[in-house]
């Protein structure tokens, strides 16, 4: 693997997602000197919708930053409601594309309003809770939902519709879980710092994962001390948001390959997190896993452990340059507070141990 990797879809060479170390390193040092630094920079990387920001929000919450207080969550009311509207619009649009009629006439009326005029302020009116819920339960919408791999839909759709009675109220204050489950496409770069003992601070950097966002990653590559790469287990039947004809797993593997084999990261601890385990387990109960992976034994396709093992092999096979003893693999369900806390603690320990080893 070369030191310079050009984003594959970039025919004109403009998407230099990764590059060799440059001399203008703002922190004035490479990963090799990390143990002497008072700040450890950890990058959360991964393709779009792999759960980077969800994990980031959880970590914020563990550290009492951002969303712990009512006041701060109140500011997110509109975003939660926008999520509801986006999901409703996508579902209604899907019924049209998939040619599945919405069955009940009153739900068809609701669908029209959703597409044409409904806005987040309207959702303060509790009557919308009933109308949206009735639409959600409409056989046509449910059928479209069952076929959600054929269009773009947020993972939190079901959760939001099941909580409409709270959300559609003028007294609504988002709960921590609401905020965690709300999907916001990350654009640009966000970071937070917190202490990890020994006089050190950990700086966690969250980035957008879509193709155009990845070229921004480079701004942190020179100063990175550890990489946490997330990939979604449940994306095996989905295509990309930014390129609807492209399989998400293929994209994830490609991005992983580019990141893990990048020369800048040879010496940094690398964690691969298989996220959305919860969704994945639900999904394989009803969908065929082996259909998407010809090399996988069909008889094992309902066994999550076997499936994850297979995915792990797929990803580890991509590692050609990075020393394997500095790579750790874990599964995660980032929407689960306890699990995130535990996994992140392990990740932190792994990174710290690796740093000490150096």
């Amino acid at each position, binding site marked *: 693997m070369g030191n310079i990797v050009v984003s594959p879809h970039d025919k004109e060479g*403009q998407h230099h997602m990764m590059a060799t170390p440059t001399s203008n390193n703002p922190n004035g040092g490479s990963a090799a000197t990390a143990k002497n630094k008072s700040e450890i920079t950890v990058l959360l990387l991964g393709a779009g919708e792999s759960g980077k920001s969800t994990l980031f929000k959880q970590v914020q919450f563990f550290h*009492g930053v951002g969303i712990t207080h009512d006041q701060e969550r109140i500011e*997110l009311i509109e975003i939660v409601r926008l999520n509801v509207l986006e999901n409703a619009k996508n579902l209604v649009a899907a019924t049209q594309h998939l040619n599945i009629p919405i069955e009940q006439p009153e739900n068809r009326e609701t669908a029209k309003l959703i597409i044409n005029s409904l806005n987040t302020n309207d959702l303060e009116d509790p009557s919308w809770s009933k109308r949206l819920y009735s639409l959600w339960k409409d056989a046509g919408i449910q059928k479209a939902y069952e076929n959600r791999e054929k269009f773009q839909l947020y993972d939190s759709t079901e959760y939001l519709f099941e909580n409409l009675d709270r959300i559609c109220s003028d007294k609504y204050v988002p*709960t*921590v879980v609401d905020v965690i489950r709300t999907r916001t*496409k990350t654009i640009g770069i966000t970071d937070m710092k917190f202490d990890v003992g020994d006089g050190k601070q950990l700086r966690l950097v969250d980035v957008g994962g879509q*193709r155009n966002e990845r070229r*921004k990653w480079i701004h942190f590559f020179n100063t990175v001390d550890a990489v946490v790469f997330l990939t979604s287990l449940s994306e095996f039947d989905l295509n990309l948001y930014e390129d609807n004809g492209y399989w998400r797993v293929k994209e994830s593997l490609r991005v992983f390959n580019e990141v893990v084999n990048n020369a800048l990261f040879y010496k940094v601890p690398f964690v691969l997190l298989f996220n959305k385990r919860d969704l994945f387990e639900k999904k394989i109960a009803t969908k065929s896993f082996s259909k998407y992976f010809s090399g996988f034994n069909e008889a094992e396709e309902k066994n999550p452990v076997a499936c994850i093992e297979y995915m792990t092999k797929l990803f580890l096979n991509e590692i050609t340059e990075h020393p394997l003893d500095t790579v750790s693999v874990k599964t995660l369900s980032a929407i689960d507070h306890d699990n995130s806390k535990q996994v992140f603690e392990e990740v932190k320990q792994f990174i710290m141990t690796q740093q000490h080893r150096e």
Partner: protein
Amino acid sequence: MGRKKKQVTLIDLECYTFCYELIYSDKDTRDCFFDYLITTHNEEAIYFIQKVQQFKKKDLTNNKKAKLAIEIFNCYLKDGGKYELNLSSKDRQHIKEEYEKVGQLDNCETCLLSDNIFTALEQQIHLSLKEANFPHFIKSPKFRELAMKQTTDFLDKIGFRMNAKKIDIIQRLLGSSSSIIASPSTQSLASLDGSMDSFRLSESLTGPIIDPNAFLRGESSNGWKLLDKHSHITVEDFRFMACKVFEKDSKAQDMSKFFQNLVGDPSADSTSRRQSAPNLASKSASYSERSMSLSVNNSPSLQRYNSENNNVRKISIDSSSNVTEYFEDMWTKSEKKTSNYTLYSYDLKTSMFDEADTDVMESLKNIHIFKTEVEYPYNVDFVVETFARSQYRIDFDNMLKESFSLDFMHVHQPPSEGEVRREEVSSSMLQEVWRFSYSLLNLKDRSFIVESSLMYDEQNRAYLLLKKSVDNVIIDDSDCVRGRLLQLMVFERKEKEKTIMTDFVVLDMKDSVNNIIFENCVAKRAKEFYDKGMSALKANMELIKHNFPTPSDSDRILETLVNNNKCGYCKLGFKLRTNNNSDLDDLDDL
């Protein structure tokens, strides 16, 4: 509105919710937002919006428009464009089709696209910025810096004041933003000739005793160290509280005055006028002694002045002085001493009701302030460590559901939802429930969800535990009225085997509670502090004597204490034990 224009403070910023559209429509804030977007690598969004604005201009020639349309496509919309936008496949496809339909990409002479071709995309970009970047922007130093150069009417222009009534009674009480608190008046201070000496004395003493700046910076040059840096309560919180008390957070004496207000005994007599050198004072003076020596308002002349001028608005407060005067003018203190504890309660002076505006007074009616002092005949490290151990949780059975359980603070992380529900908690968060068992009065219980942080003053061998209520919605307290609380507990070494615990509490009960009932509860609480505390301490001492193994303890405070011990920040009273085969959970058995 008639509200006085004043410079924006951090507190004001916290009281506002900001609106993306309003911020975007104001030139200064929009520019600031754009700057922010560039520093967070979101330049493509603003460049695109600017290009679209150009495209929409009426005076643009058709030829230029065509060129611009092609530039926009190549730069922002095409896969791999220099400033490619983060668009969905569907949106990208749609706009591509629009270009292809009219053959625009092959025609740089005439613009064949409609003027509003980019409208939907532009909205999409704004939506993304609003969702993803705006919430971070309004918390950014860039925005705060800009806002704090303005007056409060600027905030009204770009946002809405949130629950102004709720803002925090405590802020009104301690802070100076309320109308009952006058602005500094050097003139009247000068007239208080008699008080000037003590004022100067206080000034000279405050700095060296505690260097609050070092403290605020989290440094340790003068003995102050944050015991646990992972706590929810940050140095910023202390700074914030100090701000509320003193307006200016940068002043060197703020923090000591803050502690003076919280821990001190403002009614102390002239023993305060000890003329010891600052350095000596820092070594010898206890908190209460120090606060006495710092107190400026004990001066007879000041008291006389106050009594002669009931109007609190006239009371002189120099910005370098403190608000103790207000405090003293508003609240009257009474003391109740028993063999085991001393209880001070503060009541609103009746004269206040004539002076202050009714809104504020209505709010203040729900405020209760009291201070408890208990002496334990044990070493301070031992006391704190004992209370920090999970097996010595003190339950105030009838009145307080959970309280004074330092074990509840595992300070690094908030409790999980499950933990909170099971009430096994945790963390810097705990719940205090005041139970009022007077059903006839139909009085609802009060619940305080509190986060706490423990600090250690190395020099004075004192531990400080700050608690403040938080808006946590996880804990279900639907049967109770959710109150607010600000509390500071100090465990101070008096002698080798003597510890004084001072507990200063400000409660906003959110609704009035009969005074007699309240006092009854406070007294009961103080008694429990002593009884249950002693029982825990005795039991732990037994353990030490017999060297019984105790349950292993994953409590973070202990870890922190151990870490601090290793670093030489503090010393633990005795050796920690790690085995887990003791069954001593039930204190009543001991």
